[in-house]
């Protein structure tokens, strides 16, 4: 890292660093994506799914949605499963979320606000 020579440069570092900090979730989030990471989920590839989600969020500059992991949601036959909860909307659980599907979910559901119908397993509170 080079020396900081101006306020603009300092601002840039702050923005980047703040993103990292916000992933910790200490500022207001508008939603939460939960990846089921029970043993079954991990075996079905949930770690890759998780990675893809975080990458996709970063790619699109989304920093107001938290990504958390949970245990098994009990939907083993459709693992990996992912729940998307956005403020003011009913939660949606998606199944068979491969890394590609994960990117679709981020793009459609998080960015455009449209539920990815073909992946939906369940709607509403579990």
């Amino acid at each position, binding site marked *: 890292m080079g*020396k900081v020579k101006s306020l603009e440069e300092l601002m840039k570092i*702050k923005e*980047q660093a703040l993103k*990292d900090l916000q992933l*910790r*979730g200490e500022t207001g989030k508008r939603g*939460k994506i939960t990846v089921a990471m029970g043993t079954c989920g*991990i075996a079905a590839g949930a770690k890759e799914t998780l990675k893809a989600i975080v990458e996709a969020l970063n790619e699109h500059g989304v920093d107001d949605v938290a990504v*958390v992991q949970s245990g*098994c949601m009990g939907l083993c036959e459709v693992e990996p499963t992912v729940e998307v909860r956005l403020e003011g909307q009913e939660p949606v659980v998606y199944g068979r979320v491969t890394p590609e599907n994960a990117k679709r979910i981020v793009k459609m559901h998080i960015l455009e606000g449209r539920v990815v119908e073909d992946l939906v397993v369940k709607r509403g509170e579990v």
Partner: protein
Amino acid sequence: MPLTTNTILICAGGACISAGEKSVKDALEEELKKYGLDEVVRVIETGCMGACTLGPIAVIYPEGVFYQKLTPEAAKEIVEEHILKGRIVEKHLYKAPEGKPVPRVHEEVPFFKKQVKIVTRNLGIIDPTKIEEYIARDGYFALAKALQMKPEDVIREIKDSGLRGRGGAGFPTGLKWELAAKQKAERKFVVCNADEGDPGAFMDRSILEGDPHAVIEGMAIAAYAIGAQKGFVYVRAEYPLAIERLNIALEQAREYGFLGENIMGTDFFFDIEIRIGAGAFVCGEETALMASIEGERGQPRVKPPYPVEKGLWGYPTVINNVETLANVPWIIRNGAKEFRKYGTETSPGTKVFALAGKVKNTGLVEVPMGITLRELIYEIGGGIAGDKKLKAVQTGGPSGGCIPAEYIDTPVDFESLQKLGAIMGSGGMIVMDEDDCMVDVARFFLEFTVEESCGKCTPCREGTKKMLEILEKITSGEGTEEDIEELEKLANVIKDTSLCGLGQTAPNPVLSTLRYFRDEYLAHVREKKCPAKKCKALISYVIDPEKCVGCTACARVCPVQCISGQVRQPHVIDQAECVRCGSCIEVCRFGAISKVTPALPVEEAVE
């Protein structure tokens, strides 16, 4: 960007480390690895979160769940349940007084809710070893802003803020800077006094450990304002973690160009060196501190000349305390007016206290000046431990005094405390209950002063020793009323004739306890009674035969075997042999043992 889902902040303040933070962290990491989660879950050691009684502490984000009193076993459970399955582990949560677990303490618990965080705003939030996290929280923006201002405008801002030195005396910081700035000299220095020696105080250590960049930034701004090129942080060797974190922070600050030459592209240059002190109390006194930095023996000298005129190696030097300097970036960034929104007219801003003693929540708290002692002790502190009666609050360490319980509604600010014969000091606050003997408290602080007196001037060297002897005489039941008079006379002479601030304030614990608790002194000398039943020579332990069931627990634990009796028969204590260690009273489950004062005559007790 690191790929993370959960972040576990684990408090690595001194208290939590002592309570086993390292083994908890190791267990967390091992367990995360076991589940293959070590790539996505970050474990970060932060500075002191403040709630020291609850340690080791961890906060798990994004949920912000606060876990307390952790063990390696608890760590395993948390990884398994919380991180892996998303279920909060209730039994390790903080519990409200009524027993209800509270997952999000920062929003719900008065200990955190009532505080105003300026100086400690980053403690427990950022990773102190990462400059980026400090920057994310607006770090070094104040320096950038200051460098675009004229030095005199920086000083004006600090003056307008009304910031007063947090090291004890409360001298206006802006005025000190102005005096130094006016000096014509080829070199000037800025010194951060991190010698913190008061028994019970740990604010400065916590700030250095948890947010070292705030102090560095404050020093750089001070240097720019007065025209200094070089700074020293004088920190005691007993604070190894603070020194380590400070070293890392200094290195990073240089790398980023916040220290060194052409700071942030300007022609301002400034660098900081750490000077490690051996931990002599007197080295916190500014002239002794300077002697120590120069490599001389740490002894005070007569003032004037003041350090701002003739300081290190004869050059103008500004010496500010850690907490004072940590206030500076906030003030420059937010402006003097914003700072004045907190605190009182003459004591603006906040003060960090190390709350200790007989209070439920001990720890580090930052409160707006002017808060009452009642709010501080009962709302933030959670009240007196064991629900006993508050007797007094000792503030300001060995230089301070005791405030009796009837002044509980006193606002905490420089003037109000001074009026009561106590001082703000650096911010140690020790809460005392009915079991504390005020004569013994005075003796404790005086013992400290006698041990730490540098010996240069006679009143402090000889006088405090004489005072201690008298106090020991009184607490051992040998004192007379003349002794009390002599004690008071000596105290006043030492106060008036000592060379430095430490000697001048050494009699304060005695003077303030004499002022408010003279009846306790009199009970010691007239009736040979210790009302708090604390002074060993003036108490006896007795067994109530009505309550004693003869379980023999006391007899087994007694180190001098002075308790005798048959099994299932009442036991007795041989007063002639008893060393009054109190072991028996602790193990008795029947409340049969009590303390009485004055001490029983030896013959009577054996019947």
